[in-house]
């Protein structure tokens, strides 16, 4: 049932729901939990709708006459939209206890969340540079605000400030890049650009190359690749846990949806030009992220720094796209999925432990958690293992794909490098587990058990495990194979 209606339904429902919540928020009937469940329900419904479209290859320009072919709905976007809608859903579901415990999480937050998802949906579907930019801005701006929501917190406001300033700075590169491309191509439509690149010689493409470089830099900023990702530690630290999870897991997916589309459709021709840059970037990112992660005392900052490392892994696959398009792309998709599950789980657990407070969770705050909350500790362990890429978790399979694609592309050295970074990551990840299990706790605080969040944490943990060992032996459940198929359909729908 993949027709225009569905293509429009998802953003429309999100938009509608956002505005409804905004208005409903002013009504006397509004309570936080109502707002919460409206949002959650919206996410769930939209996820179901978009998930309907995945699993086959199709391309569908949405209202091409009205929208001037600026958005396109294809298997690629459907896959990504489903992914981050699911991500948003899980984030919100796990954040239930956090939402309940904090006062700054008002109805505007739900509205902004929905708007940001709307922006991501459009970003994923965008087939035109300016549209993509606006969508990106919608999403990022919502996230900026979400970061700064807790305006009484110095940390939050500072994080907001940094994110906003640097984000705007980075965004202007995109615009400059767009203009440079436009100056050459005389159009901003991706398909036209692709055609231009294929049909002209390199001399005519100098500005296109420079422009694509600038656009890439914005993207690198968003996915926090070194040296453009210096903000990530501070912002993640300042933001509240669910928002951090949202940024780390969900937002990244949308960014990658766009970067993959634009790279695969247009700039793959410059692959040999870019590869050294991306490889260098991947290496620097891996090194810097690993270095940062080992020095952190706060678990949250450690996870933030490690998300830089994960960007490094993604860049490895990204570098391999030119030589091993299919496997690298599906590796990226799988990795994003794996990472968002694990990161959302890990941050979710932290937010669950923090009970909505602004407190920084240090390693020592985890001491003895295994005794007081064994299930939480076990789930946390699973997420951590998955982040570390330990076998039998989804994170391992993801790394496996990344390394395979790197080797397939002839960059065995990158895979080696990634392995080294993974080895270092063992240290800081297992430190967490060590604190969870091996250290005696101080006075045990009783955690008010929010069942709802707990259930979703556990479900996420189980999915993480299943993603690691899931086989097609049990035919009823989609396993690793199913995800692979999915990404294949998704890539197939791009006009390569």
């Amino acid at each position: 049932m993949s027709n225009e209606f569905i293509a429009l339904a998802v953003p429309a429902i999100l938009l509608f729901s956002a505005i409804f919540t905004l208005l409903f928020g002013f009504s006397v009937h509004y309570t936080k939990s109502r707002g919460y469940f409206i949002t959650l329900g919206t996410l769930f419904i939209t996820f179901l709708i978009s998930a309907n479209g995945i699993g086959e290859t199709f391309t569908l320009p949405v209202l091409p006459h009205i929208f001037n072919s600026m958005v396109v709905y294809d298997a690629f976007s459907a896959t990504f939209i489903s992914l981050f809608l699911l991500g948003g859903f899980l984030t919100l579901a796990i954040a239930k206890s956090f939402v309940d415990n904090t006062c700054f999480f008002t109805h505007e937050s739900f509205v902004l969340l929905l708007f940001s998802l709307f922006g991501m949906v459009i970003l994923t579907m965008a087939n035109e540079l300016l549209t993509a930019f606006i969508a990106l801005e919608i999403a990022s701006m919502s996230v900026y605000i979400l970061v700064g929501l807790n305006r009484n917190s110095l940390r939050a406001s500072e994080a907001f400030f940094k994110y906003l300033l640097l984000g705007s700075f980075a965004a202007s590169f995109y615009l400059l890049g767009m203009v440079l491309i436009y100056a050459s191509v005389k159009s901003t439509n991706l398909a036209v650009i692709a055609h231009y690149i294929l049909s002209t010689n390199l001399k005519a493409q100098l500005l296109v190359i420079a422009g694509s470089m600038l656009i890439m830099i914005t993207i690198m900023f968003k996915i926090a690749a070194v040296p453009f990702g210096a903000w990530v530690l501070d912002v993640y630290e300042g933001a509240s846990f669910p928002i951090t999870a949202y940024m780390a897991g969900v937002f990244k997916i949308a960014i990658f949806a766009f970067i993959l589309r634009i790279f695969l459709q247009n700039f793959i021709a410059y692959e040999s030009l870019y590869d050294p840059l991306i490889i260098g970037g991947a290496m620097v990112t891996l090194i810097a992220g690993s270095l940062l992660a080992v020095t952190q005392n706060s678990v949250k900052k450690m996870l933030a720094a490690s998300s830089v490392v994960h960007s490094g892994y993604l860049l490895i696959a990204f570098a391999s796209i030119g030589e091993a398009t299919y496997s690298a792309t599906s590796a990226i998709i799988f990795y994003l999925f794996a990472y968002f599950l694990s990161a959302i789980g890990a941050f979710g657990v932290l937010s669950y432990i923090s009970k909505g407070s602004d407190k920084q969770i240090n390693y020592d705050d985890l001491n003895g958690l295994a005794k007081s909350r064994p299930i939480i500790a076990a789930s946390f362990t699973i997420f951590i293992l998955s982040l570390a890429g330990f076998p039998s978790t989804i994170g391992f399979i993801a790394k496996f794909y990344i390394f395979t694609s790197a080797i397939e592309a002839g960059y065995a050295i990158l895979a080696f490098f990634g392995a080294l970074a993974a080895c270092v990551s063992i240290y800081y990840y297992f430190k967490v587990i060590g604190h969870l299990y091996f250290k005696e706790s101080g006075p045990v605080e009783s955690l008010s058990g929010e069942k709802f969040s707990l259930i979703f944490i556990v479900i996420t943990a189980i999915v993480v495990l299943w993603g690691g060992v899931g086989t097609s032996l049990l035919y009823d459940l989609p396993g690793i194979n199913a995800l692979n198929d999915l990404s294949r359909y998704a890539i197939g729908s791009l006009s390569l």
Partner: protein
Amino acid sequence: MQNEILFAILELISIISSVVMISAHRPIDSALSFIVTLISIAALFALVNATFLFVVQIIIYAGAILSLILFIIMFLNIKDENLPDEKYKNRWLLGTSIIITPFSLILIDLILRSDIAVHALRDEKFGTIKDVGATLFSQWVLPFELVSILLLVALIGAVTLSKKEA
């Protein structure tokens, strides 16, 4: 020829005023010189017959945004002692300029090397409100609508963030 001379003058004005903007110590000076930059840019718009955009630039930038900045500066009542004491400002300016030079030069070089000019003939309608409007609503409906959402988001954000504590 006349255009070229005008361009050169405006170019100089805009560059100088923007340099002043980034180097002035007090924000109010920066803001004022920024207005000069904006107006000169608007004039550059006009130079190529982009009349509508000339108007928009004047109204929105020089009028609205800059007023807002000035308003904020005054509203916050920033005194001189609240201003950062920028001891190493000039060093920073110099250093950053040196760092950025390759970037600028490379881009300028690329622009000079590439063959982008079409020299299409402009008809009379060009740059008028009608022309721009027609293009906007025939080809750029979606971005236009999206921008409205963006503004809504910004609005919500601004309201939420600057709200006093409940």
